[in-house]
């Protein structure tokens, strides 16, 4: 457990993060945590990306959860891979802890059939309401509600 200056808890849970995602083309170390989108019934890796405006779900995950043809709004967003058309949808993503408590985040995500990469957790609509810290020596990701 980490504590804030006033001795109140900083986090409710912690999980081991990984520096890479096997099979993914990232050349440098990143932060991959585990999440469960909606009621997928499994954990998946998601890259923490504070520079991303929105959380983006891997396309097959979005499809499995019925989000590609959901009731949200269509938008075209600028991503690291260019301008992509898709939809903004509201769903729940659980940030999974290995110890302590996980967090259910009712969040807006971007889903698209044109998206060819994995799942990214963006700042807007997700990370902006989460306190988080990393210990790069032990590869722990600490988190709590912001």
């Amino acid at each position: 457990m980490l504590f804030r200056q006033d001795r109140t808890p900083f986090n409710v849970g912690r999980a081991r993060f990984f520096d890479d995602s096997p099979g993914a083309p990232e050349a440098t170390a990143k932060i991959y945590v585990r999440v469960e989108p909606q009621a997928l019934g499994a954990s998946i890796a998601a890259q923490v990306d504070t520079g991303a405006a929105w959380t983006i779900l891997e396309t097959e995950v979005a499809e499995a959860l019925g989000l590609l043809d959901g009731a949200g709004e269509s938008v075209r967003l600028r991503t690291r891979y260019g301008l992509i058309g898709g939809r903004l949808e509201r769903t729940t993503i659980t940030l999974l802890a290995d110890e302590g408590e996980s967090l259910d985040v009712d969040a807006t995500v971007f889903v698209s059939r044109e998206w060819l990469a994995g799942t990214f957790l963006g700042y807007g609509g997700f990370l902006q309401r989460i306190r988080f810290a990393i210990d790069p020596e032990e590869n722990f990701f600490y988190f709590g509600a912001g």
Partner: protein
Amino acid sequence: MNRGENAGDIRARAARYLGEVRELVEREQVTEARKLLDAAPPDLLDEPSLLRWRSLLAPPRVTTAQRRDTDRRREYAWLRTHGSEYRGQWVALDDGRLVAAASSLQELRERLKHGSASFPFVHHLS
């Protein structure tokens, strides 16, 4: 409702208003988009499309959950050792072992329904 307007006119006016909201979102000016929604004319406040945008642009809500995952170092070790054998496929791993593999996530989930892994780690190997 303006004098002489019918429901179709209101929807058209809402569409124009929300078109501006969409443009702001696409330019990553989400705070400005929220302000524009907050300033919507009173007669548009109950429009389904506006309510949808309000929901989408609402800040995330965070609550604690008791469900946990397990430390997946053994699963990652398996991926590093065997991942190249399953390139292009989805794999499900649990307890450091391969539980199922399939060419699509949908097919993988079907296979997992008949298996014993209660909460596997699933991964696509590009």
